[in-house]
């Protein structure tokens, strides 16, 4: 849901105040929003660690953990997005330790960049989110492989075939989740 679609409310008799972020004033996220986003993240973690592996496995499957990172990064300041990226990268490194630390570096950089880009450039739009999911997943895969010391042929295959495939599936699933939970994931602020 775009920011323009969010409703306004009245505060202290000064007329309708939009809950859309205007770039001014001391504001913070509502507790109910944090709870809803937490529920979405928990659902994504369950999808990643139980539902998907219990149904299907193979290359190119959507990465729900990365999706959770993107959803959080779009709603956090860049510094905290880097912290979340560090945690997500550490989790992946511990569960699939090709080169310990490679995922941490990649996810910190991408988390920070996504949050910073969201604060400066991106619009809160489904298509933009899908593009971010696709490009972010693709870049993550290439960075992790490069940091893991993969051969040039493997890197090329990842860049041309498997990276785009996983980026596409992640973007598709991410778009469905963003649409399904659009009311929960909408960015609102409390003034």
């Amino acid at each position: 849901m775009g920011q323009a679609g969010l409703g306004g409310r009245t505060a202290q008799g000064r007329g309708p105040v939009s809950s859309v972020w205007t770039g001014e004033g001391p504001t913070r996220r509502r507790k109910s929003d944090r709870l809803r986003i937490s529920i979405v993240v928990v659902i994504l973690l369950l999808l990643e660690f139980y539902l998907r592996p219990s149904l299907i496995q193979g290359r190119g499957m959507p990465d729900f953990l990365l999706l959770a990172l993107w959803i959080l990064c779009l709603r956090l300041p860049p510094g905290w997005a880097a912290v979340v990226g560090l945690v997500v990268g550490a989790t992946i490194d511990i569960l699939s330790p090709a080169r310990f630390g490679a995922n941490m570096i990649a996810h910190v950089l991408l988390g920070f960049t996504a949050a910073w880009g969201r604060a400066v450039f991106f619009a809160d739009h489904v298509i933009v989110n899908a593009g971010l999911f696709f490009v972010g997943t693709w870049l993550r895969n290439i960075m992790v492989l490069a940091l893991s010391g993969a051969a040039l042929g493997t890197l090329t295959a990842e860049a041309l075939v498997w990276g785009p495939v996983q980026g596409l599936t992640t973007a598709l699933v991410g778009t469905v989740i963003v649409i399904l939970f659009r009311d929960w994931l909408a960015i609102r602020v409390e003034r």
Partner: protein
Amino acid sequence: MRDFGGRDSVGRDLPLLVACLTVALLCYALPRTWSSALVTGIRRTALSPVVALRARAERDRTSRFTLEAIEAARDSLALRLQGDSVLVHENAELRALIGLGTRLRSRWVPAEVLHQVTPTDARMLLMNAGRNVGVAVHDPVVTPEGLLGVIWEAGPRASTVMSWRHPDFRVSAYTDSGSVLGIVGPLVVGSRGQAILELRGVALRDTVPTGATVFTTGLGGVYPRGIPIGRVIDAEIDPLGYERLYRIAPFANPGAISHAIVLLAPSDSGWVKPDSAGAPPRAVDP
């Protein structure tokens, strides 16, 4: 840079980014022994519910989708065992005739492979069998098709496998004719980055026909002798002209397997001497 509250957040965000990057780079630069200890510790404590959940998911998927295949494989094995029982009996008689002791039987444990959707998944695999069932570092890991890899690190309840796709993987090998020895290592070929194996160190005078099967030699003390590795699909001359190189299509696919077998190191408890009463020797399998 301004956050959703409109505050200038550069002062807060950059230190956090630098701190996170520093931690990540420190982890990246850690020696393998230290990082292994760290990974094992976190996997045993904070992430143990995640590993248990993944193992449960793998079991559910197996029971849901591959039960029929497992039943078919079990039936095939039962038929084959019936045919092999005569050979086993003959072998025991011949060994007794020439005074050979009982053949050591390898101990093994089954394990489920917990795949991740990361691009490096096929190089290092996580399995839900650890030191609690006797798995140790350098234990070979096989599938019904052939050699998969070797245990890289063993935690209390989970372990990491270095598969044959890892750049550091090496195994001493011979061909089914028994006349050609070499070292097998991974190789990436083609524009699609297809991962295969390569038999190196073969003398120029030796030739291996296409289609020959390659087995482990047992040299080096890690892999037992006779585990199938793959089939020769192509040959080429070393650019420097010192050796022949053979490309091998591996039998085991690390990206597709869901179960594997860890061959445990032989130990004194792994076999029992024949007793004086003439009872047949038996292996003690876990």
